[in-house]
């Protein structure tokens, strides 16, 4: 079996670029935790906005994140109001909420603007190859597994299981969901794991200490 490692220079360059973006997102997240003054936070917000523009994420919707930010700000401000019994803590509360929002924004932008394949390629460089293989394989097969779960669910609904959304509003029907959908789904995922492992073993997976692939792949 040919076991020549085969990552071309283009793929290596791509992985390096994705790795750089990943590092940038993590650094900006960490900086948000370190920012304690308003000018620092403004500067960080500007950097994040420039990042958004640079990644050409015009169609990227921030509505959900802004909604979460508003909700989080309300909770934090209410807690600060209760704590200080006057309006003096509101400024600090808002700053804290702002910091938390800036901590999550770069990661969110990164994952929305980078394809899953490229992320996994980059992960291959920082994770043990076996772990990266397991992670990428599981993510690759997740849609297949979800389709299986959906067909199990539909089959059980046709058989009369009380697992429709309106049935699940009653907590005593949740056990039906467990027995009719979760257990078969777990059995199915175990069978799928066995098949994938066997296929990988048939291709000599794990015989070499480093990950290998067909030449030119």
């Amino acid at each position, binding site marked *: 079996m040919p076991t020549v490692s085969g990552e071309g220079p283009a793929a290596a360059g791509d992985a390096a670029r994705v790795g750089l973006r990943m590092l940038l997102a993590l650094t900006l997240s960490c900086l948000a935790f370190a920012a304690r003054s308003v000018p620092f936070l403004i500067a960080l917000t500007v950097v994040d906005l420039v990042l958004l523009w640079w990644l050409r994420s015009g169609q990227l919707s921030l509505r959900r994140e802004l909604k979460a930010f508003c909700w989080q700000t309300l909770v934090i401000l209410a807690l600060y109001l209760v704590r200080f019994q006057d309006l003096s803590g509101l400024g600090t509360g808002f700053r*804290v909420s702002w910091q938390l929002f800036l901590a999550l924004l*770069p990661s969110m932008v990164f994952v929305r603007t980078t394809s899953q394949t490229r992320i996994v390629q980059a992960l291959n460089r920082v994770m043990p190859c076996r772990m990266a293989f397991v*992670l990428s394989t*599981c993510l690759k097969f997740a849609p297949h597994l979800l389709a299986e779960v959906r067909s199990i669910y539909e089959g059980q609904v046709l058989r009369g299981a009380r697992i429709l959304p309106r049935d699940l509003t009653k907590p005593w029907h949740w056990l039906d969901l467990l027995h009719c959908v979760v257990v078969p789904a777990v*059995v199915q*995922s175990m069978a799928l794991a066995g098949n994938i*492992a066997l296929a990988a073993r048939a291709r000599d997976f794990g015989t070499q200490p480093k990950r290998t692939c067909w030449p030119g792949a």
Partner: protein
Amino acid sequence: MNPVVEPAGGLFRLSLKEALFIGFCAVFAVLGRMMLRLHLHISGHAMLVTIFFLLLARGSVRYRFAASFAGLLAGSASIFLGFAKNGPFMLVKYLLVALIIDGAGLLLPGLFRNYFLSALVGGCAGATKFFTEYSKNFMVGMDSTVNFQSSLLEAAGAIVFGVLGGLLVPVVIRRLKAYGVIS
């Protein structure tokens, strides 16, 4: 020609099949978390799926650090796939829950068949949310009293849902054993 046989795993060794099964549990934990965004505005309800799948990963294979492995995979997946509300803290969140489960798995034999023990471990694992929330808010400089109250509020919900997630595990493990899927 050598027959293609997948070697079995053990207490300290993880076979590829088991690793992939644990990976699927991790993916289910992340996807379940994503689907469970029911807009209930109840803190910690995502802990139900997290604790359920991490306990299931540990209860279904013999490997001693199965939950930690699942937590590591789930954390990595959620950080880089956009389900991470808390950025890099997500990995710590999953890992703390997983470490409690692995620790309990080492100390309490028969944990995954006992409803009380599973619920207890689920609750303890849910309680880790207090520490992650507290340290996250501490790092951004939140007032300590507000931080304590806010973290307690978050952790209370996580404990309730952790107990619920723990209670579901013995049911599933028993069914899997009855089908002969796990030994």
